[in-house]
């Protein structure tokens, strides 16, 4: 059952990331969309990892506790590269600002979010395989 959920979240994560990828080359036209897709992609990767590592606490409104939960799950498996999870906290801290804040967002900030999302995705893909998560 967990493997089905892992595949569900993983499918979402890759879909969001690909969407970000398609839009990121045209930041003059699309600025907030690729950034938000990148953040949501990271959230979905995190959900896939957490479910695959046995967390039963994944829900749509517990994103703020997600980083801590993921880190403790990785620690319980003695995963040797847990630092990648820190990038998730950084991305989550930008979510409301990108989605709702009225003030302008600088292009370099958007580029940083996209880069962090890509790096988090690269880390998550490698982590999922290395941890032999069922459904990955």
């Amino acid at each position, binding site marked *: 059952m967990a493997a089905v959920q892992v595949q569900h979240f993983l499918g979402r994560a890759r879909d969001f990331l690909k969407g970000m990828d398609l839009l990121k080359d045209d930041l003059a036209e699309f600025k907030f969309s690729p950034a938000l897709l990148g953040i949501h992609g990271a959230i979905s990767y995190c959900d896939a990892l957490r479910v695959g590592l046995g967390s039963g606490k994944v829900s749509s409104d517990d994103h703020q506790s997600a980083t801590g939960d993921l880190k403790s799950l990785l620690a319980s498996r003695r995963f040797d590269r847990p630092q990648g999870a820190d990038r998730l906290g950084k991305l989550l801290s930008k979510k409301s600002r990108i989605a709702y804040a009225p003030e302008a967002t600088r292009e370099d900030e958007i580029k940083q979010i996209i880069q962090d999302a890509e790096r988090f995705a690269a880390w998550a*893909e*490698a982590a999922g395989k290395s941890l032999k998560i069922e459904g990955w």
Partner: protein
Amino acid sequence: MIDSLMKKQDLGRAKNALQDYLIHKLLIPKIYMDANWNGMPVDVLAIDRAGVGDVHAVRMVPLEPGIGISAAFILFATPSQSPIEEFRSLPSHYRYVAVVGSDQDSYEFNPAVVWNSLAEDGVGRIGILYVDLSEDEPSVRVILKAERFRSSKEIVELADHYVAEHTANWEIRE
């Protein structure tokens, strides 16, 4: 001397164009140029999803000046001479032959090419790309869409080993 330098530079530009094509097609891949893949030369090798996903292998077929893509199709449709034949035994999920040329011509698609590109059991088809060097910026066009070949323990182990031993030409670092 100048001719050979230009040819080398053209092939380099074609490799870069193929790399860009794969970066956009795949998700955060690791890309290698001039790879030795299980003892076979591969011009551009991409391993999807940060090096843990499907393996994509591209071999280039440069055309001599004045020869258009229709001539390449005649070659591809002849099994004994086709560059596709050598690619059949290459262990990778996706395989592509990239025709590199600068002479635009129209062509009639030869159904024999499609037939020759298929795996014996039908699971997998070698894709054909055309790298157009006639414009200032090289572009890649899909002539025949690649279809996924069967996976195997051999492919997965080769990919894991390759990623561990080589530095990618393009990648998203963690």
